[in-house]
């Protein structure tokens, strides 16, 4: 029996903002979908195209890169570099045939716990509508 599709989303979260915001969301007991798998990175500037592709290749249904608000990067421009790499990855995913909308860049501060929950919810709903990553043949429904 097939369980309903539950997207699996990889979120690369910057230590200085999104990761702390996720922590805050937890501390505040804010509910957000359990579909997201958080990977802490020292800065979203660390996230390269190859990591985004590898996430999809290994079955992720969506990838979210969550960095500091523009202008507030701890390393000055890491989040701006990340945005361009996410756009490049989206174009590549389009050529591959997976669709560029499966990857997204978002920006928030460490004080935005509720916003983090909101972004994760929006991303989960978007990916739910897009359906499962067709490359993942091992499961459609379980996390």
């Amino acid at each position, binding site marked *: 029996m097939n369980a309903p599709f539950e997207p699996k989303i990889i979120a690369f979260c910057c230590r200085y903002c999104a990761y702390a915001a996720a922590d805050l969301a937890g501390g505040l007991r804010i509910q957000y979908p359990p579909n997201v798998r958080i990977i802490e990175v020292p800065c979203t500037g660390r996230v*390269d195209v*190859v990591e985004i592709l590898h996430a999809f290749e290994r079955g992720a249904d969506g990838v979210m890169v969550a960095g500091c608000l523009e202008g507030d990067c701890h390393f000055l421009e890491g989040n701006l570099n990340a945005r361009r790499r996410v756009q490049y990855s989206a174009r*590549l995913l389009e*050529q*591959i045939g*997976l669709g560029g909308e499966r990857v997204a860049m978002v920006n928030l501060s460490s004080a935005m716990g509720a916003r983090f929950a909101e972004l994760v919810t929006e991303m989960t709903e978007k990916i739910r509508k897009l359906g499962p990553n067709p490359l993942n043949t091992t499961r459609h429904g379980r996390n």
Partner: protein
Amino acid sequence: MIIGEQKPLAEIMEQLGEARKVLVVGCGTCVTVCFAGGEKEVAILASALRMKSKLDGHPMEVDEVTVQRQCEWEYIDPLRERLKEYDAILSLACGIGVQAMNEHFPEYITLPGLNTTFLGLPEEQGVWEERCQACGDCILDLTAGICPIARCSKQLLNGPCGGSQRGVCEVDANIPCAWQLIWERAVKLGREELLLEIQPPKNWSTSRDGGPRKIIREDLRLQR
């Protein structure tokens, strides 16, 4: 250095055809520095090929390797044993690397994953510009260190032409007029006298007009 640009994924897929097992071979020299065919680009392309082929219904196994310099026999020779495992070899080196692979391993076809675009430099991070055409007879001493062969659209030796307007070439407003640059630099260096001399037509036999070129240095050749 040599500047290259990756071919579109669809064109690469077409070249690979029905291949089931593919080796993507990168090069650690020029194309690494211009972000076209180094270790990271090999990883990105290999991942893209694995995903696209799976989605297209004929999954490919794609392996990755990057050699320090694909245009030298010594560096590519260690690949010999590995190559027999693959249906197709895709090189992310410049055209020289692709041909080196084909010459050194004549029993396998090595396919090109890049378009070798020009000899140039990174004008800034992410922007590359042509600087040399390898014409075989350098005249930078006569042109204030700026090459009109590579940078003037007409390759003029006695420029600028009438198409130079406000320092820009008529071919494209994004191309600075090489002869304007030459003149300005010559004035700054106090070498404008050099430009008053009319240059005779260039001898193109040292360039491609003389056919494929070759250099033999007997002093460097190994005794056989």
